[in-house]
């Protein structure tokens, strides 16, 4: 059989091999030890140099073309095999992926972080104090003596007399203002702090819970006046609500520990039946504030003729409600998973000034 015929036959055999096994049989028949091409290769040893010169390239060419044809066919058959297998491995990709629980940050914590971020930019550190306070820090030092009518406004939770310390009745703090006292008695002015935390009043109805959160601000320095207070509150509320059209209305008021005292209303607009901060369609009370009373500065051992400043306080829960739209305070303290999933925040939504404090 001449080489050309052999090549044609082998090529036809390769082409018609339907499986890898059949292809392997063709390979053995051609290139195996007893194979037809191998036999031709062996004949080259007995050839004269001239003969080898003409026959060698032909036989080698045959081997090469068969080898590459085998490889090509093998790859083709393997691809076909793989495709067949993959076709059997089909899975319904509409099936649900495994659940990963989604964790959340409570709105109160988130808002406290937002406030810490805003006030850090204005140079306010975050101060803390005990929630179980003595009467002096909670009332007396704040210019609220025992018979002061303002005490009646506070609905105080008391501890029994035997828990008194240094003759001071112990109470659950009714506001974060005692942190003012603790700060002024423990550090030298100038002072700029905010003090967020839990506070307690024995009051419970649709809009009051016996425990809630306040944030206190205090600035003690030289030459601080009501204008600084106004700027600070405007700047804070604009940053917190992330709106430039936040309008404040200041009203004279009364707190025993400030003089003059100022109540702050913020203007709102009604959008889709909800009150949204900004504009001045209506007013709601958001903050109490004022210039720190001389007697309070004195009670803390500072000279009120040298140091003066302002303080303000507001409800953290309420700030959260105004910004994020919750309408029931009681739900804040219920731990209802559904509520936490709805109003809670993603762990990675850390408030930053560059990213915007709100989420």
């Amino acid at each position: 059989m001449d080489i050309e015929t052999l090549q044609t036959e082998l090529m036809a055999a390769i082409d018609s091999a339907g499986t890898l096994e059949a292809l392997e049989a063709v390979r053995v028949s051609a290139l195996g030890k007893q194979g037809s091409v191998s036999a031709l290769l062996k004949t080259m040893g007995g050839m004269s140099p001239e003969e080898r010169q003409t026959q060698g390239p032909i036989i080698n060419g045959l081997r090469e073309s068969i080898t590459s044809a085998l490889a090509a066919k093998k790859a083709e058959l393997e691809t076909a095999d793989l495709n067949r297998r993959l076709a059997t491995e089909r899975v319904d990709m509409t099936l649900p992926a495994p659940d990963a629980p989604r964790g959340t940050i409570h709105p109160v914590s988130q808002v406290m972080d937002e406030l810490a971020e805003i006030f850090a930019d204005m140079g306010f550190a975050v101060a803390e104090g005990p929630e179980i306070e003595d009467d002096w820090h909670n009332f007396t030092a704040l210019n609220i003596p025992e018979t002061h009518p303002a005490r009646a406004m506070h609905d105080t939770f008391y501890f029994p007399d035997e828990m008194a310390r240094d003759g001071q009745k112990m109470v659950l703090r009714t506001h974060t203002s005692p942190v003012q006292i603790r700060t002024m008695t423990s550090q030298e002015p100038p002072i700029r702090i905010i003090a967020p935390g839990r506070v307690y009043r024995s009051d419970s109805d649709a809009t009051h819970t016996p425990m809630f959160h306040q944030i206190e601000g205090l600035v003690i320095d030289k030459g601080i006046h009501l204008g600084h207070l106004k700027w600070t509150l405007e700047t804070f509320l604009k940053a917190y609500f992330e709106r430039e059209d936040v309008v404040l209305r200041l009203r004279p008021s009364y707190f025993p520990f400030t003089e003059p005292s100022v109540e702050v209303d913020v203007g709102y607009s009604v959008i889709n039946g909800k009150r949204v901060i900004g504009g001045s369609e209506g007013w709601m009370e958001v903050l109490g504030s004022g210039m720190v009373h001389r007697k309070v500065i004195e009670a803390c051992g500072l000279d009120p003729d040298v140091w003066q400043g302002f303080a303000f306080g507001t409800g953290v829960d309420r700030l959260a409600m105004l910004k994020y739209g919750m309408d029931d305070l009681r739900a804040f303290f219920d731990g209802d998973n559904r509520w936490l999933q709805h109003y809670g925040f993603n762990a990675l939504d850390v408030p930053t000034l560059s990213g915007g404090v709100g989420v």
Partner: protein
Amino acid sequence: MKFSLSWLKEHLDTDADMQAVADCLNRIGLEVEGIENPAESLSAFRIAKVISAAPHPQADKLQVLSVDAGGEPLQVVCGAPNARAGMLGVFGPAGAVVPANNMVLKVAAIRGIESNGMMCSIAELELGDDHDGIIELPDDAPIGQVYADWAGLDDPVIDVSITPNRQDCMGVRGIARDLAAAGLGTLKPLGDVYKIDLSTPLEGSDPAPNVRTDDAAGCPAFYAQSVSGVRNGEAPEWMRAKLKAIGQKPISALVDITNFLSIDLGRPLHVYDRAKLNGALVARKAVDGEQVVALNGKTYALDASMTVIADDTMVHDIGGIMGGEHSGVSEDTTDVLIECAFFDPEHIARTGQKLGLTSDARQRFERGVDPAFLDDGLAIATKLVLDLTGGKASAITRVGQAPLTPRIFAYDTDYCHRLGGVDVAPEEQRNILTRLGFSVTDDWAVTVPSWRRDVDGPADLVEEVVRMVGLDNVVSVPLPRADGVAQPTATPAQSLERKIRRTAAARGLNEAINWSFLPQKAADAFGGGAWSLANPISEDMKVMRPSLLPGLLSAAQRNIDRGASSVRLFEIGRRYFVGTNGSSDERATAGIVLAGDKSVRNWATGKSAKFDAFDAKAEAIALLKAAGVATDNLLVMDDAGAHYHPGQSATLRMGPKNILAAFGTLHPAKAKAFDLDGIVVAAEIFLDAIPLKKASDFMRPAFTPPALQAVTRDFAFLVAEDMPANDLLRAIKGCDKDNIVAARLFDRFSGQGVPEGQVSLAVEVTLQPTDKSYGDDDLKLISDKVIAAAAKLGAVLRG
């Protein structure tokens, strides 16, 4: 504090309308809480005449009226017994809304007869309690006119919130004075308002009443005057209307006079029925155990700190707070004694707090009434009694002296800018203060008016000026800003809390905020609370929590009751203990509760998975890691607390004493106490025990990746079943620190091939060569060390 616009205008000469008055009140610090105009809800109700009245054919108690309300006569069915032809009343046509019940009137058949509206009673229009019959109006009432207009009800009622410092505004006149000072009008002279000459005392010839004060501290001044021969009927309509407008019920002329003056002038008075008195009326301290039945019908037990007014027989008045029932006036009263006293504010406050008794009088006395207003107050009261009930006035008894020491402050007009941040010309400041009743000398010595007890220093004067100028005129001034970008402000403890919180949320836990107080039982079950409230709002909110777990468990239980299948909650908050010096020791803590299914049934396995103690351990370790704790070095020890499963719980300690965390399966009895079925696991991280990161050194230790490949070798040991696996791992890790970088348990097996009472632990040990690769000898040497270290613990290498 409520008053109507017309009432205000008795004292204030002004053209201002309701809105202007309200705006001004808010601007000067008298916060308007509400404005209600009763005429608004009554605009549909008109004056009508009953033309005829005939019996209803189907009902004995009903009549069929023909009513003229200014148009065609209308047929109206009416059940009032006083309905009759010829009378005038108030008619509500179809479409009108009845204020008392918000019912919309309709044309409807009543027992078969069409009715086109309703003739109304006082109660239906919410003008009083009288519902015995329909309103009867005088014959000259204009038929067809809106009733509210004719009756003078078109008079808005303003509700103002008076801050505790402003006693002077606990009366309409004080509010008028403030508004006048703010430029809203002119304050009418008091004598004109009451048509009385206050320059001469209103004194009669009868002997002055016998009163005195034996308690100069509690009742420093006691003025009294008697009126004999009074007839205590109804007060006149103008007084009744004013009281009704603000929601007070008229009682009798004498009672109404004192109520009226309390509101009008902020001056509480008391009127005694002289026939019920026996001997001198004396202000004195009560005797311990003494009792009095007050005008509210309740009996109060008094003690020796309380000031009372008593005669020879009994206590007749809790001084300055509430009168006694016995000597209260009635319709039979003919002779009265009018008391106009000054009670010490602190005494009143203490007595009121002790008795838990509030009243209009207490509210005013404890804020401090005008001590210079005793004579005028008494004269006006006596005049009203004489005018309204007749009779003859006695001479006046004046005992004691109200505290009248003038308060004078040197005032620096610059202080207005320094404190108030607003520039007001000195002359303008002088005008403002003068209008408010202060007297100002040329060199700025400012005398406070007697009625402004709240003003006790120059800062208060600044407040007065700023208040009148308007806070709108205070210009915002930026706080000076430190150079550079904002400095970090969080303390290490705050940073720690933030990291823990966000790590927990990132791990799929939901942050809850629970009450700081617990029921006694829950606190006892979790170590006992050190602080119990004396006045809890309920027994469920009584003890300050010693642990965060009860709150979380209650929340978990509520969630499961609502159908949640899986609960992952955490809270960061304080636990409350008593410090060594008796103060509060509040420890920051993170609590975690995992309940229900760890994963719900799913298509891949068809099964749900439950939480176990290792889930709690994983959370505890993860949070401690986030806090920067090298958790590999922590000791795992028992003693997590009685609320955990004794065999499935532990503590994580840094050294044998410092407990950083506790975790485990909750004790089944505790879970049951919270109505939680199935396995509940929990963890507590004691944040106060975690060493805080020192001020940051940002530089990290140098790191060069090892040049040589690490190798692993597996060992399997037989150990006693109760030997902690962690001991073996620690021993292996510690036996050759130069080479062994990790030891990881990858199998724990008991059963076939493992002797009874033992367990096989398989450990993968990672070896890191440093300068040259390990040869067989090196590996043998290390291997021997591992086996020897394990052997010390009684572990035997499995063949």
